[in-house]
Structure formats: C-alpha cells, structure tokens
C-alpha cells in the first residue's frame, strides 16, 4: 500500500512537471532570423478570413523584408485594448470604423499622416465618406479595409403576389408604407402571416432612422441633438408600425423568425418583403435562398424631402497601428499594400463587398458575385451617406438610441419622451466627457 501510494505520488509529480515543461516549450517564441515579423490581429472568420489571408500570403511572398503573422481572434477590440494598455499591442489591428473617435481620444492608435505622405496615400484616392471615417481632428488615424453600404432589399415574388409591380419598388417612405400595407396579411385571429416591412427587421441600424428623415444626432461641437424634430418624426414613423399592426402581434410574428444566418431568415423565407440591409446580403441569399427573386434600390426618402434621396448607412472596417507597436514602419508597409488597388480588390472581392477606392478595375465589376454591387458602390458617393457621429461616447450613445427604439416599439413611451430622455442623458455624458478631456489638458 505504501509503495503503491509512493509510486502514484511520484507519477503525478512527473506528469505535472512534464506538463509545465511542455507548456513552456509550446509558448516560447522561436524567432526566425531574416524578415521582420509583424503581428496583425483581425476579427474575421470563414471566407472573410480567407480573403485577408490571401492578401497576407501574397504580401509575404512578394518580398522578404517583412513577414506578417496573421492572427484571427474574436473579441478583437477587447483583446487589442488590453494588449495596448499592457504595452504589447499588435503592430496592425483590424478594428471598427465608427469607433475611431474613441480610439483616438484614448491615444490608443497612432496618427498615420507621415506614413501616408511617404507612400503617396491621400484622400483623393478614396471615396470621400470612407476616407473621412478614419480622419479625425486633422489627422489620419485609420485606413479602410472593407466598406459597406445599405439599401432597400425587396422580394419581387411577394410584390407580385400582392398585385404590385416588382420592377417598380417604392421611392418614398409613404409609398413604402402603403406597399407594405398591401403585402401584409393576417389570419382570422389577427396574427400576422406576412409583413411588407418592419423597422425592427433586421434592426441593426436603429440609431440611424433619424438621418433618413433629415435629423442629426450631434451638432459637431458640444451639443447632442438626440431630440431634433426630424429624429422625433423618424421615431414617430417607427412607432406608427407598432400602432398599425399591434405590439403583441408584431412581437409574436418576430419571435417566429428563424436565425438571421439560416434559410429561416425573415427576408429569405418570404416572411418580410422589404428590409434595409447591407452589401453582404447577397451572400446570404446565395447561400440559403438561391431561388429568391430579389432586387435592391436606395432606401426611400420622405415625400416632402426629395433632398434626402439615396440615403444609406455607411460602415467600414479599418486598419490601425496601435500605440506602442514595435514595428510601425513595417506595419505601414503592409497596410500600404492592402490599400493599393491590387490588395484592396483582392480583399474586397474575396469578401464580396465593393471597394473604398475611387479607381476600380473592370475585372472587379465584371466578376463580382453581387448583382447590385454598382448600386452599393454608388451609394457610398451619396451626399446623404449616414455615418455615426464621430464622438468618443458613440458606443454608449448608440446603445441608448437602441434602447429608445425598443421602448417606442413596445409603446412604453412616446417618441418625444424617449428621445428627450436620451437627449438629457447623453448631453450629460458628453458634457462630462469634454470636462474630463479638459482636465487632461486636451480641450477641444
């Protein structure tokens, strides 16, 4: 008994020591002589990851001074934040365009102006809206990777079934509302069977509805304008759907929707005829509902505001060099390649989006799988392109607006009430934010 215990104990000790030794071995970096290694952290998976991997591989093979080590990881912002704060950030990070102001105010990312000049990268090579997203307080902080715009996607078959002309989708919001009313059908108990349009589907840009009606969320200086009359008008329009079709009926209908990424997606399965969606929607249609007859047009504008035509929510992924990166020069050499027409088209074609550059090759248009790619690209030029306000408190502001949207959709508050509350809260937060900046000697 004693001997067995002894052997057992020593065996355990051996295993533990062995595990320690092995784990240390795995995590010890084996630096290879030769090219400079730069760490690049990105957020993508699946075919999107493959697209960037192709770009990285091409770059690595094309020269032998610099080798990019690509790491795909979820929770990219969290991880990059911790690493930058801890002083060992990656050399290049793929973050989110709308948060540039926050990153820059936090001094988390380096200005890229000098590098841009060195490599001849300038604003006139880009579609203005995409360049502007990375431009903040007089400096270039980020360069775009893959862009996105949104448009009204509509189901031609459902249009036909409701007696509407599938080649004549609505141009104004009022037309869309009435088309939606024609398409929406309910059963004897009042349960919705089919819907023409629902502002909450997919519900990814609930902060943006105000812009579609000409409202703004910020005056560009120190005033938050959440309860701007046009914003209230937009939310009244949103609430009109809840009033017309009933909160419970809409909720029940909504809970019957399948997962977004599946054939049971509301739009893909013929439950909702029209929705605001992005340039990637065509991928999902091809994957899950290849037989769907669909079209895309710019999202409608209010009939009394034709100046708001071609409104589209605009977004982009960006590349930044975090503060404290070990090899910023080499990092930018790689970024410059991504920003070149060759690199960018490889990436954007691989991800099936359009490109943020002005110059586009004929090959790109000809081979792109999205039949409406030109529409999405053109919408980026629109003077009514919608981007979130470039303020450091945007993440919280966006969350507040989403919550307000929920509240009015559930008829818990009137649009005026909900937006007044957002206004009060966010004005307070913005004042505090500016106050703290001044405390640090960074007055605006």
């Amino acid at each position, binding site marked *: 008994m004693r001997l067995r215990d002894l052997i057992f104990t020593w065996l355990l000790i051996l295993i533990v020591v062995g595990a320690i030794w092995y784990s240390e071995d795995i995590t010890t970096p084996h630096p290879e002589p030769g090219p400079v290694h730069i760490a690049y952290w990105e957020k993508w998976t699946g075919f999107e990851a493959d697209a960037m991997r192709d770009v990285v591989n091409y770059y690595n093979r094309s020269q032998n001074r610099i080798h990019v080590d690509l790491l795909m990881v979820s929770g990219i*912002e969290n991880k990059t934040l911790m690493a930058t*704060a801890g002083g060992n950030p990656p050399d290049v990070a793929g973050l989110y365009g709308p948060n540039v102001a926050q990153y820059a105010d*936090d001094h988390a990312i380096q200005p890229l102006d000098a590098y841009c000049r060195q490599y001849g990268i300038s604003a006139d090579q880009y579609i203005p809206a995409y360049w502007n997203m990375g431009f903040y307080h007089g400096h270039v902080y980020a360069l775009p990777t893959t862009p996105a715009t949104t448009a009204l996607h509509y189901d031609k078959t459902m249009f036909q079934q409701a007696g509407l002309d599938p080649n004549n989708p609505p141009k104004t919001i009022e037309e869309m509302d009435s088309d939606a009313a024609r398409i929406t059908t309910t059963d004897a108990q009042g349960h919705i069977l089919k819907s023409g349009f629902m502002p909450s589907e997919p519900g990814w840009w609930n902060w943006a509805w105000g812009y579609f009606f000409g409202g703004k969320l910020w005056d560009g200086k120190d005033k938050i304008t959440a309860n701007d009359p046009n914003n209230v008008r937009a939310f009244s329009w949103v609430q009109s759907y809840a009033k017309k079709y009933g909160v419970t009926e809409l909720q029940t209908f909504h*809970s019957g929707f399948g997962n977004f990424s599946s054939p049971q997606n509301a739009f893909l399965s013929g439950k909702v005829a029209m929705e605001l969606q992005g340039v990637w929607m065509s991928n999902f249609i091809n994957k899950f509902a290849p037989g769907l007859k669909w079209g895309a047009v710019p999202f409608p504008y209010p009939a009394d505001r034709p100046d708001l035509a071609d409104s589209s929510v605009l977004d982009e992924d960006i590349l930044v060099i975090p*503060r404290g990166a070990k090899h910023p020069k080499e990092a930018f050499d790689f970024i410059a390649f991504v920003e070149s027409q060759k690199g960018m088209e490889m990436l954007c074609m691989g991800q099936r989006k359009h490109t943020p550059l002005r110059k586009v090759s004929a090959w790109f248009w000809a081979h792109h799988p999205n039949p409406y790619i030109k529409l999405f690209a053109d919408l980026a030029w629109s003077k009514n392109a919608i981007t979130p306000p470039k303020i450091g408190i945007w993440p*919280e502001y966006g969350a507040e607006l989403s*919550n307000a949207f*929920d509240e009015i959709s559930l008829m818990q508050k009137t649009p005026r009430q909900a937006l007044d509350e957002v206004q009060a809260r966010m004005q307070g937060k913005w004042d505090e934010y500016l106050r703290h900046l001044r*405390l640090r000697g960074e007055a605006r």
Partner: protein
Amino acid sequence: MILYRPEKRRTNMRRREIITALLFASPWIIGFLVFMLYPLLASVYYSFCDYSVLRAPAWIGLDNYTDLWHDEVFWTTLTNTFWYALMAIPFGFLVTLSLALLLNTKVRGMALYRTIFFLPSLLPGVALAVVWMWVFNGDHGVLNEVLRALHVPNPPNWLGDPHYSKPMLALLGIWSAGNAVVIYLAGLQDVPQPLYEAADLDGAGWIAKTWHVTLPMLSPVILFNLIMGIIGTLQVFTAPYVISPSGSPARSIYFYTMYLYDNAFIYHKMGYACAMGWILFVIILILTMAALKISERHVYYGGS
C-alpha cells in the same frame, strides 16, 4: 536548579502551532499578496479616477460615485439584478436541493441519471446561446410547445416580452444546477448511516428523516450553496450577455455586471466601472454577512 517553566513550553508549542498553520495557509497568503492585492487596491484607486485603460488615470474624487447616483441605467440594472436574485435564489435553492435528494436515492441506473443532470452545465457558452433561444422561443420553442400541449392558453413570449424575460432567465438557471447538485451529493455521502438507522428505529418516515437527519447534517453545505447563490446571482453575467448583450427587450435583462462590463470595455470608462464594482461589493458583503449571521443558529458543524 533549573525550574520547569510551563509558560515557555506552552508558548513554544503555540508558536509551533501558529507556524504550522501559516505554512498550511501560505499558498493563499502568498497568492493573495501577489495576485490579488495589487488589482484590488488599484481598482479602488481607479474608482476615484477618470480612467479609460488606455491612458493614465486622472483623479476626479467622488465624481464617479455621484454620477452613478444620478445615472438612470445604474438604477435600472440594480433593480433588475435584485428582482432576478429574488426569483433565482429561492427557486435555485429548492430545485438543486430537491434534485440532489432525488439523485441520492437507491435507484438503478443512478450513475446515468446523475450524468444527465450534470450535462447542461458542461455546454460551452456559444452553443448555449442558440440552445436557449430555441427552448424559449415564443412561437415554436420547446417550452411553449410543451405548455401548449398541456393546454396552457397563450404561453408567453419569453424572449420578446419584457415582463417575461427575467423569469425566463430564472428558469434557465435550472440547467446550471448541475454544479450545486454535485456539491450536495458529495455532502450527502458524509451523512452518517447510523443516524438514519436510528431514525428508522424511531419509526420516522422519509420526510421526517430528511428534516431531522439529512438537512441538519447537510447544513454547512447548504450554507455554502446559499452564499455562493447570493454572490453568484447578484453578479449574473454570462447567460444574459450571451442571449442579448444589450439586455433587450428594453433593457429588461440588462443586469448590473453587464452594465459594468460595458462601461469598462466598450465605453472605456474603467473608473466608472470600478466604482460600480465596489458598490456591488459592499451590497454583496452586507447580504452575505446577514446570511451568515442568520445561519449561525441553524448550521450544524459535525466536526465541532
């Protein structure tokens, strides 16, 4: 003549005792000093600063705390958390204890049953999100299908209706019962058999046996699970965050730690988050001390 000095001998013994005890406790003591002290003190300091993690903290005194007092979302999440705790703690306690007693009976195939009950607590978070959405879906979810089969009219829309989202989370907690049940089971093994036999001789039925033998002998473990329950439910995070990071619909399942996390890592307001953290700490501390005080009379420690 050297006189025998009993006091010195006793102090020596006592000193040896203390040294031995400290040696036993040394892993924790060292670990605390190295891994815990700095983060704890740092976070207290941060709670009095404007700190975005990426930049050095700047002292702002009590600003964070006064801002919290006026922050509507702070109060919303605090109330949400309390409501949830009020539902989840008693419910969880009843369910886990009953399950443990059930799983302690001598029925064939018990090993299999126990594994089954333990399974859901093994699922990785990413799979759980989808599973729960499936079970609680208002239209075709498993739960509502069952309720409809039992002729319950209009089963609620668990995920979409703000009145039902918190109860849904409390129900969902059943599946993570596995851990607490296992702890109870281990504790049940240590209830001395002779006590049961003596109770049998007295003609006690199983209810009486449970009440007079099992529960008292199990009381230290019950106390453990209860306190862990308080500490755990007040910090509820993973489950609701995975279902809806923003706490939809309308922040009905937006809980305290979720708002804390958002402030820390998404809004880059770590100082504010630290203030929230320490407020929660105080609340949990008070509740735990209350629980310990109340339980003092009811917990029986067999070893002393």
